[in-house]
Structure formats: structure tokens, C-alpha cells
């Protein structure tokens, strides 16, 4: 069974009298260790799909099985638990706690995972080391550059060893050079066996992945593998 099994997933929104299909009958599977980009213009339903895969939302109909767990029928608390253990979020705007140190930001998922403080610290330091910020642990977000902030956010996503890392426009708020660095980091994480899903509308960002799922009007318009020649690869440092 795939890591992510999406079967006939639909999501409806009621806007006054109208019913809008954000997603219709979408089925897709993602294997463990894959590096996938989800693309689509705004309003295509890609955010809806991302929210469903991220367990922030529940589908109107269909099945969603994540890492062998049937999540489509879960209640709010169970979903929070799945998000905590299975999913690492990376946001466009970093979304760090402004008044907390990098270390505390990275520890936060472990606080909700009810892990003791020693292990928390150990694992947060390890995660910060993995993203190359081992020497910045006591800095607060406003003392860090945009790229460094996004690295802290990635460390936070990694820290609870999730099944998937779900990145929403991770380079959207970065200049192109820093963006490339962040994409290099994703590549590195991918080469270490992490499953990564990047949601983006930028072709260049998507081309770092090995597979692109294109969404249009709530349907999967294309699901293509990227041949090694077409892939953008950043020289690994």
C-alpha cells in the first residue's frame, strides 16, 4: 500500500445558495520516499488538496489513507494527533513564533507530542543541525535572515520524524538565490529518504521534484514523472 492513498476524494463548499466543488473524485497515490510537486493556478483546488493531505480539513466524500491510517473519518483531536506525528508543515511565510528562540520553535511540535524536555531538546538540536543552523539555536526569528527562518521552519517540520513533509510555496517569500538554497535542502532531505510534497504554482520550483501532479478545476489534469534530464538539480553541498 502506498504511503498516501487518495480514493475518489471530493470536497464541497457551500457559498450561499451555490455549491462549489473544490475537488471532484480525485484519486492519487504517493509512495514513501517520493518527492512530489502539486501544481495548479489559484482556484484550481490545489490548496484544498493540500489541506486534506495535511489533515487540516476533512473531505466531503472519498477516502484518504495516510501511512495506513484512515483519516477521512477522524474527529478534530485525532486529526491534530495525526498532524503532529505524520506531517511536517513548511509555510510560505515561515510562521515561526516571533518571540521564541529557534530552538523553542523547533521544540514546539514535541511539546504537543508530550515528549519529555530532555529528549525534546536533543531532537530539536539534531533537527537544527540537519538544516545547517546548529550555531543559531538561541536566535529569535527577527535575528535571522529569511532563508534561515525557513530553515528553522523546516527543522520544526522534521523534528517529530513525520511521514511526509508538506511545503506550501516554501520559496514564495525568498529571493531567488535563497530559494535555490532551500530547494537544495529539500533535495538533500529527499535523498535521505524523506517523503516531500511541495505545493507551488512556479514551474521552476516544481521541476526540482521527481513527479508533478497538476490540478485544474478540482481534477487531476496531469500526473507526470520528470526524467532526470528535465529535473533542475542544485549542486549538493
Amino acid at each position, binding site marked *: 500500500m502506498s504511503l498516501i492513498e487518495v480514493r475518489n476524494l471530493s470536497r464541497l463548499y457551500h457559498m450561499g445558495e451555490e455549491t462549489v466543488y473544490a475537488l471532484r473524485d480525485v484519486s492519487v497515490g504517493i509512495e514513501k520516499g517520493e518527492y512530489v510537486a502539486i501544481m495548479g493556478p489559484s482556484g484550481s483546488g490545489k490548496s484544498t488538496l493540500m489541506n486534506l493531505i495535511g489533515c*487540516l480539513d476533512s473531505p466531503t466524500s472519498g477516502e484518504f489513507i495516510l501511512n495506513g491510517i484512515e483519516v477521512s473519518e477522524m474527529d478534530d483531536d485525532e486529526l*491534530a494527533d495525526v498532524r503532529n506525528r505524520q506531517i511536517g508543515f513548511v509555510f510560505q511565510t515561515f*510562521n515561526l513564533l516571533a*518571540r*521564541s528562540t529557534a530552538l523553542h520553535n523547533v521544540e*514546539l511540535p514535541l511539546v*504537543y*507530542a508530550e515528549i519529555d*524536555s530532555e529528549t525534546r531538546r536533543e531532537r530539536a538540536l539534531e533537527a537544527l543541525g540537519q538544516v545547517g543552523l546548529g550555531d543559531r539555536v538561541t536566535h529569535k526569528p527577527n535575528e535571522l535572515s529569511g532563508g534561515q527562518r525557513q530553515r528553522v521552519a523546516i527543522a520544526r517540520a522534521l523534528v517529530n520524524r513525520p511521514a511526509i513533509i508538506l511545503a506550501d510555496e516554501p520559496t514564495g517569500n525568498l529571493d531567488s538565490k535563497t530559494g535555490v538554497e532551500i530547494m537544495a535542502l529539500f533535495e538533500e532531505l529527499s535523498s535521505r529518504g524523506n517523503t516531500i510534497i511541495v505545493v507551488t504554482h512556479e514551474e521552476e520550483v516544481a521541476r526540482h521534484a521527481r513527479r508533478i501532479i497538476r490540478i485544474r478545476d478540482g481534477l487531476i489534469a496531469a500526473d507526470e514523472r520528470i526524467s532526470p534530464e528535465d529535473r533542475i538539480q542544485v549542486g549538493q553541498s
Partner: protein
Amino acid sequence: MRQAEVKESFVMALDALRANKVRSALTLLGILVGVFSIIVVMTAIRVMQDSVESSLSQLGANTFQIQKWPSMRVGGGERDWQKYFRRKDLTFDHANALVERVTRAKSIGVDEGLWSAEVISDYAETNPDVRLRGVTPGTFPGKNWVVESGRSILDADVDSNRRVCVIGAPVAKKAFPFGSPLGQTIKFHGIGYVVVGVLEDMGSSFGSEQGNFVLIPLTTGLNRYGWKRSLDFVVQAKDQASFDDVQSQVRGILRTIRKVPPGEEDDFDMVSNDSLITQFRSVTLAVRAGAAAVSSIALVVAGIGIMNIMLVSVTERTREIGVRRAIGAKKKNILLQFIIEAVVLCQVGGIVGVVLGILGGNLTSLFLQLPPSVPLDWALYGLLICSAVGVVFGTYPAYRAAQVNPIEALRYE
């Protein structure tokens, strides 16, 4: 509720406080005033209560006093005054009857304040504030008077109206600065009394010295200052166990000899340390109730302020809530975080209020020259009340925070 989560919320709360200093300070002010007003009054009353109680306990253990007039009156007015005024006097005969008939008392004595004036010895003269009191031997144990040197007043002194006296330590110090007063003569109102005993020093209370008096045999005093007066009786029971028995025995005998018909209330008052302290407490109850009312109003107003600021805070931090929800916080985690934040906010104000209140309340001890008092119980209640305000007024904003939809919260600008 887990420790790590509580600690996390606590740290976040202090961070939030620090980030909005002015806003937090203004919000805290309400709580501070509420807690301050209750603590300041409670401290002030406690200061006075401690000292009133210590001065009231000049009655010895297991002792009660019988008097025509109640020792403290609350309200009542003219009618009550009339009632007490019409009571028959308590006479020496009554006292003697008690001595004869009461079986279980350890001592029965009479204490009658006669006059206040200066005491003149051959060497010095005291201030004119020394009280002359007519007593019997049975008065000494009940009043906790201990003869340090010489002897007490004896039955023989009373029987034969001797002009002898026992003086309190302050009087001895002032009237006889150089040597022992025993055997010397003092003059009070021009009449000489031979000093036969000196009492132990009893310290001071409310800034005035205890024992600033001259004790003479009751009969000597009444012969000089007149028999037509009501006396105070001092009765000491053998122990705590027999206290109630002795009281009811004394009550029964007095009712009989004073011919009080059955079913009617006593025509005399019986007071003990406990009853005096109870009366003092009932007098201060009104003040305390007033303070409680004022501060509860202040605290409700402060609580509304807390709720308001917490609602603002929840809105401002919608995105933070979204992030926390995304990385695994459950609704109850968010709820708890914001309730703790409200409680911390209240507690900071409360702690400052308690400290200022105790300091302010102890100003009374400075002015009245009483020992200061730290009402730990009220400090604790104050902080508990703060927590309660935090929980009560923080729950609704925290509930709102918990209900935030994480998807919308993450998109919130």
C-alpha cells in the same frame, strides 16, 4: 494537564505580557486595585485584631467576668441603654454569695475601678493616670496578676478594711525609682496606703502600659469612694472542661439571688476572652464586608477588562493559533493556553496588589505603634481570587481561540 504544556503556556503568557507592556499594565491595574483594596483592609484589621486580642486576653485562662454593662455594644440605642441602666447593681453581697455557693470555681474575686489619679511617694510622683482598683484575693488568678515581691491582698485585709496596697510594676518603677517599695507608703487622693506587694511586669498593649494601677482591698476602697455602685466579678474555672459548668452554676445562683423570674433573660452580662473577641470580630465584620463588596466590584470590572484584552489578543494571534493547530495542538491545548495566559495576567496584578496591600495595611501598625502583621491567609485568598477571575473571564476568549479554524487562521493576515 501536562507539566510541559503548562510551562509552555506560562512562558508564552509572560512573553505576551512583555510584548505589550503598556496594554498589560493598564489591564493589570484593575486587578491590582481590586486585590489591593481587600488586602489593605484585611491587613489593617488583622493588625488591630492581633493587638486587641492580646489586650483582651488580660483575663486569665478559663476566666470569665460578670458585669452589669456589656463590654461592647453594637447599635441598640436608647432602649438598650435603658435596659442595662435598670439592671440591679452587682453588690459585694452577691459576690460573697457566689464565693459561698459556687463549688467548682478555682477563684472568685471582685474588681472595681475606683478612680484615676497620681500616686505620690516620698521620692516621686507619677502621672495622674494611675487607676485605683478595689479587689479581693480571688481577683488575682483570674486577672493573671502575679505578685513578684511581697504578698497579695489577703482576706484579712478585706475583712478589716486595711490601708494596704499591691502596686503594678510601672507604678513601682515611677514612684520608687531607687529602691524597693515594700513597706513604704504611697498617697492616693491624700490617703496613705502601705505597699505590701509588687506585681510582675505585664508589658504593654496598644501603646499603653499594663499594670499602671494600685490595688487596694475592696472594702477599703468602697468605704472611701462609696458603696452604691455595681461591681465586676471575676470567676476562674479549674480547667477548660469545667468552664461551661461553672458558668451555668454562677448564672443560676445569680439569677436566684437577684430574683430573675424563669424564662426572662439574665440581668447581668457574662464575658470571657472568647466572647470579647467574638464581639470585636462582629464589630469589624461590617468593615470587612464593605471591603469585600468594594473589591468584588473592582474585580468584576477588572475581569471584564481582562476578557476584553484577551479577545484582542486572540484576534491578533490568530495566525499563531493556526500554526499551533497545524503542528499538532488540539483544541483543548489552545483553550488551556489562553486560560493560563489570563490567569498569569491576573496573578501578576494580584501579586503586586497583595504586596502593596500588605504594605499599605501595615501603615496602620506604624501609626498606632502596633506590631505589624502579614495576613498570609488573605494573601493566599487574594491570589486564589485572582486565579478565579482569570479562569472565569479568560474562558470565553480561550474558547473563541480554540474554535478558530486552522485553515483560515493560517491564511489570516
